[in-house]
């Protein structure tokens, strides 16, 4: 596996293997509120959700299926949508990924992209509808549509990024 010659008995540190994925999602969720960016419409892609989905597409077994509960709560604290939205929707998304990974045994790049984009669109659209229950449905969906399209196009990039982080995560000492 390791081109420079494997050093036996020295796997990556357990802490790094566990923390890197969680840290990327948490930083991704909180990053928009650390930048001096005042947006008039939801334009910035949901980085936390993108990382969350990409990690699960890349390493389905890495996390237990309930990991969306704590990570979703963290995202809710920063995203502005009512607390509990991402807790529920992210967990449902990860159950969906686990289910799909049993149905489609060998997933290819386009499978991953399609699954990621579909789940991302569903999560963002449902979150917007939960946030504004009294507003006109079409208008709310129209509001988040540009963001969903941008995010869907960004899925391959984030899959690559997640792969880079995965390499770092598993890099042997």
């Amino acid at each position, binding site marked *: 596996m390791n081109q420079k010659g494997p050093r036996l008995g020295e796997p990556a540190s357990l802490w790094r293997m566990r923390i890197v994925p969680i840290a990327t999602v948490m930083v991704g969720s*909180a990053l928009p*509120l*650390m*930048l*001096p*960016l*005042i*947006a*008039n*419409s*939801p*334009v*910035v*892609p*949901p980085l*936390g959700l993108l990382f969350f989905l990409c990690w699960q597409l*890349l390493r*389905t*077994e890495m996390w*237990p*299926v*309930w990991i*969306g*509960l704590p990570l*979703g*709560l963290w995202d809710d*604290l*920063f*995203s*502005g*949508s*009512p*607390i*509990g*939205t991402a*807790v*529920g*929707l992210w*967990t449902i998304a*990860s*159950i969906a990924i*686990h289910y799909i*990974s*049993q149905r489609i045994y*060998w*997933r*290819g*790049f386009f499978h991953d992209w399609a699954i990621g984009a579909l789940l991302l669109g569903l999560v963002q659209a449902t*979150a*917007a509808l*939960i*946030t*504004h*229950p*009294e*507003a006109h449905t079409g*208008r*709310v969906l129209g*509001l988040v549509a540009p*963001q969903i399209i941008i995010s869907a196009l960004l899925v391959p990039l984030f899959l690559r990024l997640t792969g880079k982080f995965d390499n770092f995560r598993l890099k042997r000492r």
Partner: protein
Amino acid sequence: MARPAHRRPGQSRKAQYSLFAAYVVAMTGAVAGLLLAVLSVADPVGFAQLRVASQEITAPIARGTRSVIGSISGIDDTVGAYVSAGSQNRRLRRELADTRRQLVATSSLQEENRQLKALLKLQETTKEAVANGYLLTSTSTSSKRIALLSIGRNVGVVAGQPVRGADGLIGRVLSSGPSVSQVLLLTDIDNIVPVRRARDGLPALAYGRGNGDLDIRTLNIANNPFKPGDILVTSGTGGLYPPNIPVAIVARRQDDGALARPLADPGKVDAVSVLRPYTPDNIEAQPLPAAAAPPASVGTRAP
């Protein structure tokens, strides 16, 4: 290509149970989360403290990045400006010409107004601001438009206070933490502001559209009285927002009212003032400008 998952736990009872338990926890948590979300839509104040507490953590970083980069004013605006540069240019030229004409008319009116006020010995009651601060950052990934204000309870900011910039109304304080507070921007879908047309006092309501624009609807639906260029100011009806704060300018007519753009862009505004909520008590408390003692708070004067 993703590696296939080995979800079959094999013969081990322990592994089977723990996998089953993980799914039970996930399903229960997901349902509980969605119920919580519905609850917190119904009662947004309940969890606001939790959220503002977490934003206290990121606020120092936001302050740091703001001081390094400066404020990035709405990237969506910038992109939109390039796309519609030609038509925008034409529209702006037309508006400029109109505005020049209005300015001439207004300046004479102002002079007349000053003279009349002097005759009546009427003083303008200056609205004391609670405090001044600046907008640090805002939510940009969800459909909710909440900005983070750089001041909090430490200078007397509490939930429900209106916030304005130099150009006009920004929004109202949603919740306040020890050193930061959240501002629900004017353009949020859930923000409704009672306004009136500055020209003739025609009452209307401004609804946020969530994408930076406002929907203006009159109470009288039969005819649509709005014209592009109409200025809307707060009417003070229903309390909360003090009257005569500029809110928006009508961009174009619609079937059921008008589409307006806010006069104060939260992305471009430099400093904002937190005002006292406008309530009937507040009005009664200042019958005479001379009798009203200046409040001994840390407040600074509104611009």
